[in-house]
């Protein structure tokens, strides 16, 4: 069953998100390389990352490492960084640079690793930094190492915060992340103070060397990072709460302070401005935020103030676009949001390159547009379509963030969630929060209320999965059943119905209330499967239902029912293969009833059952013809077999059997499965019993099939071939091997009694006497043996002895059954 509601863990973040975190983490690394040269001229953050001293070997290596990381070649990057670290003296700048680079590579590894392996990767990322700091606590580059160490922790915390945003509800995890962010924020503040102090000392010494520039670049990076951490911290609180407002206010203050520090760095100015606007938005001041952000959106139109510093030809990046859209939506400027998104996404949004932030901003826009144009089907569908697009573009993680936004904006009322995909998204969010039952009920209600079949089906499947996840298979099955029956003329109804049967059967097994073992009670699962077959005879699911029902009935030893179900009479498109399967099922059913009874008579029940079987194979269905013929040859009476003609089908054994039954010369029997040979033997024995004139011919065929096996049919064939002494030996072996049954001994005596030779009959008399002595006197079997004895005595011309014996039994053990008594009385008459 396809469902989005399987509660899988988020093990990996989408690549775009990972890259963003990675860039944050690696921030400390380029600072080494580029700050000195950049100090004299403002440049973008991309420029900051470019090393100025390209002639330097270590800088070239750092370049290579960064390039390798960006290309995803992490193993090679790590090897290179480790080699560089091992080669350098730990006290040197090169060692510090290599340690920072190695930590950066390892954090990149961490961001790609599953969450449960996070701690090991974290330890590995911190290790090179600690190695240098432990050896040289007062290392000249200690602030960079400390900053990188903080960045590693922050990257991990941000990753966890992102997971929490998509999967809320884990309070313990939330507090852990919050604690990490608070601690690292404090560390950054402290580090910023230390670096500022070093800068002041350097200025006091009137030192205008590149060292001061490097320190200032580091301080700026720390300031920006700190604002980022404060903002992220605020996301861990519910929007609008005092904690969230306090965090936003603190972030805004930090952003203002940081802006004062990075006047010469346009890129950082822009980042800080955006973060400040974000903080203002969270503080409930979207007007002010929009005013501040305006220069970033239209840099050429603004010629004053901060905007002059920002007026570079830079394309609107994803975080800024996302923020601008959110601000526009907050201010009710839907056209403005639309314009921004149109310029970014073009005419085919699903194919445009954009980060998850922008995708989520567009989702917010679509939801806002949907709310304004209530009733427009297209806008309703757009939201669902876009959630799917987000999943395709950003994976499960992005989809879950989208679902969280849907719930936040559309509320939890099912009435507002008319698009099944949105209902499913909302339910999925509930499911991840651990409220599986509520999710299931929400989905079930929506499924029942939806008139559109496809949507109802989708919702019912998701609802059933949710019910199943909490072990409520009964509710899940009932939901699917209800929807399948309500939309039974729609595609997929048969699958739902079958799935309902699966769930109800599982429920039955789990609660040990499966009534299939009790044939007196109608089995609900079997009934459901019958309904599936009846209502949707040609659906693929019906074939599965049919196979399952047949298997269940066979397991309950209801072979005839199973065979009847197996015959696809109601499906005119049934293939020959399916009819073959039905014929095989009927063969099994017919084989459960002995063709020859214990008293060596043909069982009339088999003939009736064969007629019933052949009725299932309509004569006007060519695909059924082969199965019908096979059953007729194996189980049909001699009259039916006589009407059959050999065909050109490649079934030599069936053809051989038919030839033997028709009295034709057939030669040696072709190879066949043991059970097929056994059925053939039974059929030939029955034919021989029914037609004494053919016994010699049929006995020869039986002997060919049986070889030297010690079986009753072989003994019978030997008797019919006037070889009664051999038959007697075979019967001895039969009785010896079949220790459980007195019936075998009786049948063995009966076999000999059917011989035409007096000696064989006398031997049969001995056998009857022997077996009679072992039976309880007066029992039914005992009387049968005694009556057979009387008959044999009569056949041996010992009528007076037979009469005496009959009278003796009437005097000493008179039977209770009047019919049996009457038989004795007939024999007792002289």
């Amino acid at each position, binding site marked *: 069953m396809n469902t989005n509601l399987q509660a899988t863990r988020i093990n990996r973040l989408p690549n775009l998100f990972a890259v963003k975190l990675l860039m944050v983490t690696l921030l400390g690394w380029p600072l080494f390389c580029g700050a000195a040269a950049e100090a004299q001229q403002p440049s973008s953050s991309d420029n900051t990352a470019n090393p100025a001293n390209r002639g330097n070997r270590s800088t070239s290596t750092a370049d290579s490492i960064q390039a390798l990381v960006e290309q995803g070649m992490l193993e090679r990057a790590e090897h290179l960084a480790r080699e560089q670290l091992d080669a350098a003296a730990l006290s040197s700048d090169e060692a510090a640079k290599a340690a920072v680079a190695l930590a950066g590579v390892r954090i990149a590894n961490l961001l790609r690793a599953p969450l449960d392996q996070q701690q090991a990767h974290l330890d590995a990322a911190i290790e090179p930094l600690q190695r240098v700091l432990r050896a040289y606590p007062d290392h000249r580059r200690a602030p960079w190492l400390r900053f990188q160490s903080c960045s590693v922790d922050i990257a991990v915390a941000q990753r966890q915060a992102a997971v929490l945003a998509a999967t809320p509800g884990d309070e313990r995890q939330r507090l852990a992340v919050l604690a990490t962010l608070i601690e690292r924020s404090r560390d950054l503040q402290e580090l910023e103070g230390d670096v500022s102090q070093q800068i002041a000392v350097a200025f006091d010494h009137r030192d205008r060397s590149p060292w001061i520039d490097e320190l200032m670049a580091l301080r700026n990076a720390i300031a920006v990072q700190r604002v980022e951490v404060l903002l992220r911290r605020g996301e861990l609180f519910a929007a609008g709460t005092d904690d969230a407002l306090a965090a936003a206010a603190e972030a805004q203050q930090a952003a203002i302070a940081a802006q004062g520090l990075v006047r010469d760095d346009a890129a950082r100015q822009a980042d800080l401005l955006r973060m400040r606007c974000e903080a203002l938005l969270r503080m409930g001041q979207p007007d002010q935020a929009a005013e501040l952000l305006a220069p970033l959106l239209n840099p050429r139109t603004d010629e004053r103030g901060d905007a002059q510093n920002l007026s570079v030809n830079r394309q609107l990046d994803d975080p800024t676009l996302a923020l601008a859209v959110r601000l526009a939506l907050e201010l009710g400027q839907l056209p403005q949001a639309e314009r921004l998104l149109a310029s970014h996404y073009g005419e085919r949004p699903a194919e445009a390159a954009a980060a998850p932030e922008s995708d989520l901003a567009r989702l917010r826009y679509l939801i806002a547009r949907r709310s304004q144009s209530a009733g427009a089907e297209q806008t309703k569908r757009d939201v669902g379509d876009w959630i799917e697009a987000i999943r395709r573009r950003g994976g499960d993680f992005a989809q879950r963030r989208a679902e969280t936004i849907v719930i936040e904006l559309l509320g939890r009322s099912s009435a507002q969630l008319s698009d099944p995909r949105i209902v499913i998204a909302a339910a999925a969010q509930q499911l991840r929060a651990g409220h599986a039952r509520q999710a299931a009920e929400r989905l079930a209600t929506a499924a029942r209320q939806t008139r559109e079949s496809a949507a109802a089906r989708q919702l019912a499947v998701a609802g059933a999965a949710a019910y199943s996840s909490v072990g409520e298979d009964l509710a899940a099955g009932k939901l699917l059943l209800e929807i399948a029956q309500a939309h039974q003329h729609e595609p997929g109804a048969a699958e739902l119905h079958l799935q309902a049967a699966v769930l109800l059967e599982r429920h039955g097994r789990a609660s040990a209330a499966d009534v299939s073992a009790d044939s007196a009670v109608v089995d609900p699962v079997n009934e459901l499967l019958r309904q599936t077959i009846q209502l949707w005879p040609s659906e693929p699911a019906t074939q599965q239902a049919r196979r399952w029902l047949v298997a269940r009935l066979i397991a309950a030893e209801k072979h005839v029912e199973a065979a009847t179900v197996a015959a696809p009479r109601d499906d005119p498109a049934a293939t020959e293969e399916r009819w073959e399967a039905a014929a095989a099922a009927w063969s099994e059913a017919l084989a459960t009833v002995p063709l020859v009874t214990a008293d060596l008579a043909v069982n009339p029940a088999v003939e009736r059952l064969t007629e019933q079987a052949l009725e299932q194979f309509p004569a006007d269905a060519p695909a059924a013809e082969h199965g019908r013929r096979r059953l007729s040859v194996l189980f049909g009476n001699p009259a039916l077999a006589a009407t059959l003609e050999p065909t050109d089908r490649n079934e030599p054994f069936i053809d051989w059997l038919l030839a033997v039954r028709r009295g034709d010369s057939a030669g040696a029997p072709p190879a066949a499965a043991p059970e097929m040979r056994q059925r053939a033997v039974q059929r030939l024995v029955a034919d021989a019993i029914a037609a004494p004139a053919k016994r010699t011919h049929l006995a020869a065929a039986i002997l060919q099939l049986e070889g030297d096996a010690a079986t009753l049919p072989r003994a019978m064939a030997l008797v019919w071939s006037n070889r009664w002494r051999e038959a007697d030996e075979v019967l001895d072996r039969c009785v010896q091997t079949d220790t459980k049954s007195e019936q075998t001994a009786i049948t063995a005596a009966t076999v000999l009694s059917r011989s035409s030779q007096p000696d064989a009959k006398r031997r049969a008399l001995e056998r009857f*006497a022997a077996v009679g*002595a072992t039976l309880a006197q007066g029992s039914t079997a005992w009387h049968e043996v005694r009556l057979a004895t009387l008959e044999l005595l009569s056949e041996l011309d010992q009528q007076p002895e037979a009469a005496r014996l009959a009278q003796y039994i009437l*005097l*000493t053990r*008179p039977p209770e059954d009047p019919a049996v008594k009457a038989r004795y009385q007939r024999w007792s008459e002289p």
Partner: protein
Amino acid sequence: MTPLIDVVFLLLVFFLWTSSFERPEADLSSALVLPPLAEITGGSDAPPPLYDEITIRLVQVAGREAAEIRMNDQVIADRAALADRLRQITALGAQPAVVVHPDAEVSMGVAIAVYDAVRAAGIDEVLFAVQE
């Protein structure tokens, strides 16, 4: 030398003292039938007789003075009826073995009387069934 008459006298006294006047049980024409100690797994080669043995149970029913007679689980009115039925059987020329199986509560006198009745009907082989 001791007179011969003394020796004869001593021998006479010896035999008088050692003789028993009770009739030995082996002289009675009956035997005991014991329940089998273990399941019989094999039989003899000789074919079993056509006429199965007859079991006569003597059951002491509460409230009745006389023991009830059951021949092959059929209740027989009295000893006379039993003797009559057995005479019909012997008239067929059959000589089945008859096992008399008295309950523990049935007196020996009753058992002997039934035994005598069976013998009187012409049955040669009469056995008593006992429980160990």
